[in-house]
């Protein structure tokens, strides 16, 4: 944002300098890290030790590091389970499609809002677009079901056009559409906040300069705005790609049923149905490690590609 991303200028001397000297020289900056890193060690990394039960038998109880080694037993269990892979596939499909639809829409919507001249209307539209974010998932699911009911408004519309009624909620082929559309409805407005915040940091002089050169609104958006917020866009995109194995657990739980497991069942709901028992903790942890590794690979690849193509990246 603002001036196009800067790059390091004077690299040539750092390689020579020893690490210790470097740390001493920048000790002020490094000192900022002390408290947060401690926080991370205590609250994020210490509990991670618990993941060891993916490789050990755990029967419940405070001996949370498990009782004996079982190697990759739990990993094998889910790798051999076709239902797990179905859940994996569904997870992937739902997340990827959701990303493909939501990403450009959010960006475009942010750009459109940015074009609004009247501050009052701008604020109004923004605030109203945030409302769905605050409506609890249970209520959203309820509303969706009501909308799609056999004698609900959508089917009513279909009837009017002369098409047959559909029991949407029980048809697996409709689930992705339902999930994605409701997701867009919930997240569109809220998702523009970061973009709009980033847009405010763009130097207005750049707009002036471009306008003087005769650019119209479309060119402005393409040549000034988007490049201006490119780091934000890429950061969000990379992080989203890393999060592909996630899902809106609660919403799926409320909207799915055995008839739609084929397309609706995702990793988190599958593990949930396996329930709480001694073995399932280890199983769930093994699945979690698997998800984590995939997520890490995804985010590193996305980061690499982004670095090569757009010169911005997370690290």
């Amino acid at each position, binding site marked *: 944002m603002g001036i196009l991303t800067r790059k390091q200028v004077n690299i040539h001397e750092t390689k020579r300098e020893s690490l210790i000297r470097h740390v001493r020289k920048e000790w002020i900056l490094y000192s900022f890290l002390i408290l947060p890193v401690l926080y991370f*060690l*205590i609250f994020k*990394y*210490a509990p991670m*030790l618990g993941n060891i039960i993916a490789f050990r038998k755990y*029967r*419940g*109880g*405070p*001996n*949370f*590091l498990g009782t004996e080694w079982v190697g990759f037993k739990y990993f094998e*269990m889910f790798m051999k*389970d*076709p*239902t*797990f892979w179905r859940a994996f596939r569904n997870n992937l499909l739902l997340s990827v499609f959701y990303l493909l639809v939501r990403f450009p829409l959010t960006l475009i919507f942010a750009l459109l809002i940015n074009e609004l001249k009247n501050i009052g209307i701008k604020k109004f539209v923004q605030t109203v677009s945030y409302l769905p974010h605050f409506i609890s998932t249970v209520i959203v699911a*309820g509303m969706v*079901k*009501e909308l799609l*009911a*056999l004698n609900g408004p959508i089917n009513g519309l279909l009837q009017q056009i002369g098409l047959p009624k559909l*029991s949407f*909620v*029980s048809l697996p082929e409709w689930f992705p559409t339902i999930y994605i559309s409701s997701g867009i409805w919930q997240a569109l407005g809220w998702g523009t906040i970061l973009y709009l915040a980033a847009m405010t940091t763009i130097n207005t002089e750049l707009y002036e300069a471009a306008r003087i050169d005769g650019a119209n609104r479309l060119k402005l958006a393409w040549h000034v705005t988007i490049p201006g917020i490119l780091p934000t866009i890429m950061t969000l995109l990379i992080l989203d790609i890393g999060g592909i194995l996630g899902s809106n657990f609660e919403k799926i739980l409320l909207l799915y*049923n*055995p*008839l739609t*497991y*084929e397309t609706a*069942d995702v990793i988190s709901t*599958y593990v949930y*149905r*396996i*329930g*709480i*028992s*001694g*073995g*399932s903790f280890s*199983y769930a942890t093994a699945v979690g490690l698997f998800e984590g590794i995939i997520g890490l690979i995804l985010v590193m690849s996305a980061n690499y590609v982004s670095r090569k193509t757009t010169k911005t990246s997370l690290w």
Partner: protein
Amino acid sequence: MNMLSKFGKTALALLLVAGTAACGNSDDSNSANAPDPEGTQEAQGYEYGVGKTFHSEEPVSYSMMFSDNEAYPYQDDWQFWSSLKEKTNVSFDLSVTARAEYENQKALVVNSGDAPYIIPKTYDETAYVAGGQIVPISEWTQYMPNYTEAVEKWGMADDLKAKLQEDGKYYVLPGLWESAAGGYSYVIRKDIFEAAGVDVEGSEGKWTYEDFYEALKKVKAYTDRDYVWSDQYQGKSSLNIAGVEYGVTGGWGLANGVKFDEDKQEFYFADTTDDFKEYVTYFNKLITDGLLDPESFTQDDESARAKFYKGETFVINGNYQFLAEAASKMTDKDSELYMIVQPGGPKGLLQVENSRLENGIMISQNALNDLGKEEFIKMLRFVDWLWYSDEGQTFALWGDEGDTYTKDADGKIVLNPDITYNGLNADTGTKQLHVDLGFAGGVFAYGGTDELRFSRMTEGERDYIERIKEYREPRAIQPPIMATPDEAEEMNLLVTPLMDYVDTMTLKFVMGQEDIDAGWDAYVAQVQANGADRYIQTANEIFSRTKETLGY
């Protein structure tokens, strides 16, 4: 290089910390804390016993989990707490948890070793057995006179067998009822049914699902609707209670699809039998003939109820509490709501609810470790009084005699007119028994004699239970599969994908998305492929191993 080792050192330190935290609370019951089979522990500093009110000389407090029901939220000034203190000198150190999160919280708190002493509202204790945090309470019940008496008087020994774990002990103090409950059935618009020419009271005694089907057709002809029945609970309750009559499992009762053959003394997979084919064919018929709303299986409970209240449908599954609440919400004020006895099926006119046990109490190992044997037994005797003595149960349900209720000439309980509950004293009551006073709550008030059970019911509900008793046969209780923790783990992880498939196919057959005849063989083959046979084999192996303990 030095960065790494610095990190490594910190990691090691944390590992140590975490490790010691875990090792803090190991099992190792020292022999001083083992129960003696005679059960003759002197009562030091307290009174207890059958026919006596528990009372401790010194005030004492026990930690307990409390499931907070949003319909009557927890209040610390409930009369229940103060009255209890007066009577017994016992108070609770409560962990209040929202009902919706209660199970999660329970799992966390038990598994982290931090469980409070008393853990009520336990529906399924099996997940906690292997962790060593719960006391095998069956070894201690000899100290609990009221509980023991109830078990003997009502012949519950067989029922309790269902709770036995692999080590021959059981780990929960279940709620004990003298007779089985009414359970869920179909709430119908009696006025409409009778106008359509169905003699409800005359035929419900003997009718099977096929007869019920005929009755529904009459109602449809009379009312001329697209369908006459739109179900709530996503059809799971109906599938469950119908499953009993067809000898299969479905809906809420889906579980592991396994039934026990009493004659052959072995387990078999019920959901691939011909009975199952009949079962799904029946429900499919209901849909194709326009009797049952296909949305029953997917809609929200709210939608189903709305249709019923509005008078668009005339049949809905529910329990008696639902009926009581629905009565006031009907749009047509002349509606007559009636709970029919559950229809029978190919397996006979069977009573659906066959278990006299219900959710119960786990006692955590922390209680034994912290209190020591003597005080622990004292606590058990308190639990015994509050939850298993007639006096304690009556108190938990109705409150203080004279203050909240009185007994009439026949000894029947009459709630004071200024208090209302479950439809009683609806016009005169200003205070609600559970909301304002804290009695009749789900954490304390359950279990007991038939008399006590009936005391909280309206005429209608009592009548319903009587009808079930008259027209339906009780059925045998299935023996449990007493698996070792390893076996249990394997079976548990096998069962989910297996039963997911059955669940999905049940609905597909019923809804007509899969043709029953055409798809049947493929269905059975797939169920086998998913491991049903292996599951049954393991179950039967376990059974032959444990037969004697179970008394077969």
